[in-house]
């Protein structure tokens, strides 16, 4: 494993290696070297299986963290390769030529987070949504409840009381705050 960490660091500047548990580790790579790094991992290091690819919105820091989960079946080891990209210019190299199913993940990230993968097949097509007019809905600044309340009618007639407030009203209404 040491060898792998060193090669990755030397070749692609991979940093912050962290063993999450037995058989699973995470590391970071610059987004510009992401595709080459993944290709090397697939072809040379035996991490041939792409479990999934996804993104995390780090709204507070203004970045998206991309996560590519690879698995080396021979060594029984999984690697979560992270890369961070600017939230305002979210563009990453597409890996659809590395894995034949990768374009679906990229299409999903495009729709859900607005992250673009130029060249990826059908990346601009709607994936799970239809006629969606809001912002990419997995972004943390999109409020699902507010959208739902504004869009879908609710059955009226519900009201709830807070126990402390209710008891104040009933038992000591004269008291002021």
């Amino acid at each position, binding site marked *: 494993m040491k060898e792998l960490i060193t090669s990755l660091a030397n070749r692609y500047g991979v940093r912050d290696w962290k063993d999450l548990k037995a058989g699973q580790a995470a590391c970071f790579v610059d987004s510009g070297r992401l595709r080459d790094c993944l290709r090397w991992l697939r072809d040379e290091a035996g991490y041939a299986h792409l479990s999934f690819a996804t993104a995390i919105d780090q709204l507070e820091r203004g970045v998206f963290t991309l996560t590519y989960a690879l698995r080396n079946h021979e060594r029984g080891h999984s690697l979560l390769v992270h890369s961070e990209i600017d939230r305002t210019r979210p563009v990453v190299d597409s890996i659809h030529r590395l894995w034949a199913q990768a374009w679906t993940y990229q299409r999903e990230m495009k729709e859900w987070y607005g992250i673009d993968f130029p060249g990826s097949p059908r990346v601009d097509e709607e994936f*799970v949504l239809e*006629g969606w007019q809001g912002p990419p*809905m997995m972004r943390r600044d999109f409020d699902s409840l507010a959208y*739902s309340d504004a869009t*879908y009618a*609710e*059955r009226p007639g519900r009201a709830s009381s807070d126990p402390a407030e209710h008891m104040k009203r009933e038992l000591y209404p004269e008291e002021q705050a």
Partner: protein
Amino acid sequence: MSDKHSIPGPLANEGLPLAERGLFCDAPPRQYQRANKITEAFWNWARAQSLWILGFGTGCGAIELRPLMTSRFDMYRYGIQPRPTPRQSSVFVIGGYASVKTLKRIVRSYEQMMGPKFVVALGSCTINGGMYWDSYNTIKRIDQYIPVDVYIAGCMPRPEALLAGFQELKRIIRAGRGEGQNEYARKFEWYKANQKQVIKDWNMPDYNW
């Protein structure tokens, strides 16, 4: 509520490309014309004896239809069976939550069904949003978009509860109270307005028999 969004006059089929507009009906749906009392009672009895449900599993609820239509619960003996196409079906089972994308298909399938037609709605999600009450992609009340005849509580309702629901539906039909279709015709503009409010890309005919 309906006044604000109502569509005036004959249907426009506005969502469709010009070439396709003529392919679809542009008359609004009609209310059912009852026959005389005795004949109608006989027909209602007959309708209740053969509930043909549309085989469109719109949500989780579809999973309990499998046991229902196989040997253990065997709904065929109650005169209930699934049909593959809306044209042959008289009962639409809304299997729980409906995403906007599915709602669009629900509306079209419902409109394609021959009258008299009935809707059974399963579970919390159809009544008031269920566990997806705060989701951006699921509607909360199916009765805003199509009329519903019977609700069955549960998440999911079990096959036995579904059967109970169908029995209730039969009672309603026999009593001549299956008013969903007429309701849809009566409040057609209101339903359309609601539908158009959530289905943002309205690229389908306004009414589609």
